[in-house]
């Protein structure tokens, strides 16, 4: 489990996020919400050690982040970056890259690495594109391959920065369903999302950021009833109960 304690971080001496305390709990999907530029991505990157912190602490299974090597961190948390490059390699090779932290120099893939990649591809429903080049896949297919790559890493925590951006509605729902399935299997899933109804319906917990501060944090129910989402985004988020649970919409 990853815990953030009073975490502050930013770029070039200027803090973007201030005093954030959060826990990425196994078995739950946490949606990180907030307006553009409020520090969601910075928070994720800092939690992984990709960006230096200026105060507070990040604990991975109780161990301070600083005392872990990049490889040890990679075994604890997988990350889907917002900027994803698409090199001209096969999707299968891409997924194999997820096994990287499990190997030591010089890197030779072992039988279990191929098996983990096969499993991840099937899990992410991307087995049919395994042989094809990343460059020729559609956005939705690519996203599945990236997800498979993160899964092949077999880390207990998965952080995803805007995994649904640029995807059509069908693929957005698929990503959300995959996140839920992963949580049910016992992983901690954290997603930066912009689609509020999608997030509220799919997540267990919500962390609402505004101007770099944690404005609300709790279960979807708690955060919704606090009314802070409406205030932060300047919208009126409403919901109706349907046969398949609450559905959220903008009033």
């Amino acid at each position, binding site marked *: 489990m990853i815990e953030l304690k009073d975490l502050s971080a930013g770029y070039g001496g200027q803090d973007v996020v201030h005093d954030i305390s959060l826990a990425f709990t196994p078995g739950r999907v946490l949606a990180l919400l907030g307006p553009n530029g409020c520090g969601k991505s910075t928070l994720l990157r800092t939690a992984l050690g990709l960006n230096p912190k200026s105060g507070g602490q990040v604990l991975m299974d109780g161990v301070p982040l600083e005392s872990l090597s990049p490889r040890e961190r990679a075994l604890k948390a997988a990350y889907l970056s917002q900027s994803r490059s*698409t*090199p001209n*390699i096969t999707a299968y090779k891409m997924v194999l890259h997820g096994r*990287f932290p499990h190997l030591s120099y010089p890197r030779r893939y072992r039988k279990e690495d191929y098996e983990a990649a096969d499993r991840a591809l099937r899990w992410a429903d991307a087995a049919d594109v395994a042989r094809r080049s990343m460059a020729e896949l559609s956005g939705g297919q690519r996203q599945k391959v990236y997800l498979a790559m993160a899964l092949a890493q077999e880390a207990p925590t998965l952080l995803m920065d805007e995994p649904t951006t640029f995807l059509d509605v069908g693929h957005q729902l698929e990503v959300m369903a995959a996140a839920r399935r992963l949580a049910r299997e016992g992983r901690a899933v954290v997603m930066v999302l912009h689609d509020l109804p999608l997030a509220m319906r799919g997540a267990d917990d919500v962390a609402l950021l505004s101007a770099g501060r944690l404005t609300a944090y709790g279960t979807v129910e708690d955060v919704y009833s606090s009314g802070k989402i409406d205030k932060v985004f300047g919208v009126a988020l409403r919901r109706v109960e349907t046969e398949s649970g609450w559905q959220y919409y903008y009033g």
Partner: protein
Amino acid sequence: MKSWRTSSTRRSNGLRLAALCVLMLLSALLSMCLGAVAVAPGDILPALLGEGGGAAAQIVRYARLPRTCGCLLAGAALAVSGALIQSVLDNPLAAPNIIGVSSGAGLAAALCGALAPSAALALPIASFAGALAGVLLVLFIAEKTGASKLTLVLAGVAVSGMFGAGTDTVVTFVPDALAGYSDFRIGGLANLSMSRIIPAFWVIVVAMVLIFSLAGELDVLMLGADTAQSLGVRAKPLRLVLLILAAALAGAAVSFSGLIGFVGLIVPHIMRRLLGEDSLPLLAGCALGGAVCLTLCDLLGRLLFAPYELPVGIVLSLAGGPFFIWLLIRQRGGRVHD
């Protein structure tokens, strides 16, 4: 359950690499046989083994052998260096002669020739140091200015110009600093001897072994710094190590072949199309393809106006210039990877 391990691309890549291997052997054989004096293929092996003392055997042993070895070695080193630089900087326009690596090596070679003309081993080491200074300077400038793909190339042009002027200055004061200065500037492999190649050979072998052992890291680095780091790679130090190795290759090649351009640009591009961007086959393909390309161009330069010779650098620039322009035009569309 199906497995995707032995994918069709991998098998066809194996075939393509095998074909490149054959092509390399063929071009080496041609380079040994053809020239101002033609030698029959059957006479090559006896000549190399020291049998037969005729003029043909002498030519094979003391002119063709070092020249062919030089071509293969310099071609392989420059192409792998180019591929590495392009991948690490994520910039298809980068190549050793474009971003200041070759000209840095050239300046260092000139200085070395002026200050310590008799130290054979000092030359490749000085070239390596110069190449390294070039790549680090360009990298530093590009990072300061925002590291866009174009700034990097422009910084390279500026640095290359300065280093070139430095080389000219050295040669003006010490005309003997670079044996055959115009050959050096253009890049040529005539008049090589094995003793000039051997120190560079060892540098290239060591650098190649290290580079190939880091192919997995390079693959991950190409996914972007953030992703690489989240997979447990220390992106910044790795980048530096790979660039140092690329500089070692280019510096070693420049130390005996002069400022040969375009191999490090053209070959990686062709290989990317042919083999994809998986680092291991790509780098292997670049080594083979670079060797083939330089050997054939050198052969062409030898045969076109025989008995007069065109330095290989001119042949390459005639072919490579248009290729680079085509690349620039295509680049405008914003496509970086094919």
